[in-house]
């Protein structure tokens, strides 16, 4: 392939890319000086609160806000859901208000009187038969001839029930915004993963509320966001109404969700359950799959996970049922539908491997070529590396730890996939006459290291240290990038920054070429200098070179995609994870000994933050495997654990040893950048569930793998 001017530097020519570079906004975060939306306190600030539905399903028959409005310090009250409207989950927004303090706002909520006519609700979905009219067929597909494949007398068939409960996002910074009007202009500080997309959505929402505002007059700023994980793409009702409250009150208003509302209404990952039947030849070759799956994502139900996952089993039949429940609506949760698909598939396949009395690593390697897009080779490499890092050969045993005592140890494996191509975006790179450099793009950093990646790419291109680059992000008035979702950000910002930097450098080289007496195309930027490619004696420092600009700043805009044929990124990654656990058969408690991740994501810009993403994904995976579940009560329709005391997250003592191996070098680097946010969070559930089954000799069918479920499974069989 022809060399293209924007191509990533070859392996030997990279001074920063792929190294372990410290997060550039690390000092701001660790010193507490980073200002999040929640931390914005503009003068005159009012506090907004929301009156929420106490019922899972009800019709509003009367609303009286007069007492609240009379309360001194209350500055604006507005109805979101009026009389005659229905609420569809506990926590559904009905009235928003703003007051001079948090305390007054809370008092005002207590003075609001709303009457409801309760309507029937459903908040539990695991029992499909009880779902009745809430259940709807939602897709079926067939490939090959599964009936014939299953009836082959030479195949071994395994059947089982598997599932994973609905969980929340539980962002530590609750959803919310600060809205401030100056004349016709609206400024919002928003806790969002979609800085560029928010003003248009807020404008549309306000105009629907008869607030006259032009999109051009709306600016959204988000320098730091305390977690999103897929739950913060839109402004939500509260994001529209906070702007309306601010307009009415003539003062800035901050409206952040309380923790109970955050957990009930501002984030949910759909559940998935399935009856699965799978068949292989006696040598382990997979031949057939059949699944009947169901789940809920709140009122809108949920679509079918990608089944069977990763491996395209030649004869397959899948049917899905979507259940509408009166629970907070689903939002994208890191790798939507993939963790569910991994649990339903990889647990079923591991049970089949156990029935075949095959080592799962051998079983998955044997079938890896069923992976789409010829990715089998990658999975085989990753399976081998992960197995070595986990001491698989030494620690794995056939199902059921036969050693005496009540602590049983087991190993489990899972595989996953994701796309991760960069979204559309733009980045402006400026070189100033004093030598300072800015990269400016309307993206956001969810904590994945977006700022750092931009700085590394620009610094690499200019032969400068990372600290020489000022990165401006988090403002909708900057050249637009996309929403940070689906692992699309690193592919976008690395490409836009690279293209802008290369073009800006070309302009600088053209300016300084005459002074050095070297044609511009023979100049390079390296080690803080501009110098001739073949004669390092002909050089000037970066600062001297920039001084030649006199008073004119260079600006270049990089776009993704662009018209050039340069390939800076790709899509499609795979990963393998292994869990090593101990299970106490007397208490049902599971302890993580070690988690191993082997992951590819093309060319890695910053190894340090890439590894952090994987460590974090493993920990988040341990959390949803062992602890997380929205516990719903069918009688009251409420979520029983709508606080962080009972909606449990793993702590620092719950995670065991973590080993991350990034696949790099030939075969990986030349693909360019590919996103990493989603993939490593997909496999922990299946890997841990498989490890538990390997330890105790019986499958705990559904996640989270809580002690009661472990003991219930052991009561039916296994090693105890």
């Amino acid at each position: 392939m022809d060399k293209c001017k924007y191509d990533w530097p070859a392996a030997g020519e990279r001074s920063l890319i792929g190294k372990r570079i410290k997060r550039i906004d690390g000092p701001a975060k660790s010193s507490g000086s980073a200002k999040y939306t929640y931390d914005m306190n503009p003068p005159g600030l009012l506090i907004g609160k929301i009156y929420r539905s106490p019922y899972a399903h009800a019709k509003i028959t009367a609303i009286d806000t007069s007492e609240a409005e009379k309360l001194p310090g209350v500055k604006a009250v507005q109805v979101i859901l009026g009389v005659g409207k229905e609420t569809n989950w506990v926590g559904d927004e009905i009235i928003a208000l703003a007051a001079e303090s948090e305390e007054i706002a809370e008092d005002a909520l207590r003075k609001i009187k709303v009457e409801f006519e309760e309507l029937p609700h459903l908040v539990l979905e695991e029992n499909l038969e009880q779902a009745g009219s809430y259940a709807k067929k939602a897709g079926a597909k067939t490939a090959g001839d599964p009936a014939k494949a299953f009836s082959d007398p030479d195949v071994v068939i395994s059947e089982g029930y598997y599932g994973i409960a609905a969980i929340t996002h539980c962002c530590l910074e609750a959803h919310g915004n600060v809205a401030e009007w100056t004349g016709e202009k609206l400024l919002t500080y928003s806790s969002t993963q979609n800085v560029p997309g928010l003003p248009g959505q807020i404008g549309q929402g306000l105009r629907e509320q008869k607030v006259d505002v032009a999109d051009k007059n709306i600016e959204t700023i988000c320098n730091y966001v305390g977690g999103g994980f897929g739950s913060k793409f839109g402004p939500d009702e509260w994001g529209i109404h906070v702007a309306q409250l601010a307009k009415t009150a003539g003062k800035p208003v901050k409206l952040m969700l309380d923790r109970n509302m955050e957990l009930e209404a501002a984030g949910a990952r759909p559940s998935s359950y399935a009856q699965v039947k799978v068949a292989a030849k006696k040598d382990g070759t997979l031949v057939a799959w059949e699944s009947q799956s169901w789940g809920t994502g709140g009122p809108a139900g949920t679509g079918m996970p990608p089944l069977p996952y990763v491996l395209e089993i030649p004869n397959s039949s899948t049917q899905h049922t979507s259940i509408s429940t009166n629970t907070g609506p689903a939002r994208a949760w890191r790798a939507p539908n993939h963790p569910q698909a991994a649990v339903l598939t990889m647990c079923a396949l591991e049970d089949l491997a156990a029935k075949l009395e095959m080592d799962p690593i051998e079983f998955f390697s044997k079938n890896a070529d069923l992976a789409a897009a010829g990715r089998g080779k990658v999975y085989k490499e990753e399976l081998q590396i992960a197995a070595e890092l986990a001491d698989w050969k030494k620690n794995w045993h056939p199902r059921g730890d036969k050693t005496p005592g009540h602590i049983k140890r087991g190993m489990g494996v899972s595989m996953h996939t994701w796309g991760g191509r960069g979204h559309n975006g733009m980045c402006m790179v400026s070189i100033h006459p004093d030598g300072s450099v800015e990269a400016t793009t309307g993206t956001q950093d969810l904590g994945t290291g977006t700022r750092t990646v931009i700085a590394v790419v620009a610094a690499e291109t200019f032969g400068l240290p990372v600290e020489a680059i000022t990165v401006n992000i988090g403002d909708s008035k900057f050249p637009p990038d996309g929403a940070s979702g689906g692992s699309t950000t690193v592919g976008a910002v690395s490409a836009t920054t690279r293209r802008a930097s290369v073009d800006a450098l070309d302009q600088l080289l053209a300016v300084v070429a005459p002074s050095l007496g070297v044609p511009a195309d023979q100049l390079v930027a390296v080690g803080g200098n501009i110098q001739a490619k073949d004669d390092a004696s002909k050089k000037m420092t970066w600062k001297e070179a920039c001084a030649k600009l006199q008073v004119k700043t260079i600006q270049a805009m990089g776009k993704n995609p662009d018209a050039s044929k340069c390939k800076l990124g790709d899509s499609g990654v795979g990963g393998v994870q292994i869990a090593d656990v101990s299970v106490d058969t007397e208490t049902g408690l599971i302890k993580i000994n070690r988690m191993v991740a082997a992951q590819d994501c093309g060319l890695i810009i910053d190894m340090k933050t890439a590894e952090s993403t994987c460590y974090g994904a493993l920990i988040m995976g341990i959390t949803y495997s062992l602890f997380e579940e929205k516990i719903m009560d069918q009688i009251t329709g409420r979520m029983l654990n709508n606080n962080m005391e009972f909606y449990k997250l793993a702590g620092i003592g719950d995670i065991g040893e973590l080993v991350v191996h990034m696949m790099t070098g030939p075969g990986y680097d030349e693909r360019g950048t590919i996103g990493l946010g989603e993939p490593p969070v997909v496999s922990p559930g299946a890997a841990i569930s498989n490890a538990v089954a390997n330890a105790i000799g019986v499958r705990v069918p559904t996640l989270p793998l809580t002690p009661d479920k472990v003991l219930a499974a052991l009561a039916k069989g296994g090693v105890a």
Partner: protein
Amino acid sequence: MRKKKGKHPADGFSRRDFLKGASMAVSTGLLAAPEAVAAAPEHSPGVLGPGAIPISLQVNGKAHSLKVEPRVTLLDALRNHLDLTGAKKVCDRGVCGACTVIMDGHPVYACNVLAIEAEGHRIETIEALGTADNLHPVMAAFVEHDAQQCGFCTPGFVVACKAFLDKHPNPTMKDVEHGLGGNLCRCGTYAGVREAVLEAAKTLKGGRANG
């Protein structure tokens, strides 16, 4: 839920009273500074409020006069009245540690202390420990080991870590996992935190040895 009575435990481990046998599965640091909550306010016995009352808070070496209702937490007083926003409001019920501040040398959950109870006590927040340009060794170790992603739990973790190391200058990994069990992170930065705490312990010891 079980409350530890009296002052710090003899081993001084932490403010979090873990049920040791279950600590591998129980991650909710249930307790914030019971000794702080038990501290007697200097006001005379009787009913305070319900309206705002004047109080004085000693924060980061300065006396601040403010008027707060008795129900206002120390966390809300710091964030909403003094614009000290390093301590974060997350769970608002003494579970997650994001609001950790140091009161009379002990780490407390600021959401579990009323502002009026904090009167007469010495409060230190993340803002007093260091700045982005002049990092405290614990902050520097968090940056070096990338013990942060979104960063929202980070200030609380840094403060808890500083207070922990003050009492445990030579921690083992097991000590770290126990002593910092009362701070929760959603992005999953614990791997970096473990390394950062151990490195900060070394740096701080070096600093002390050198005077």
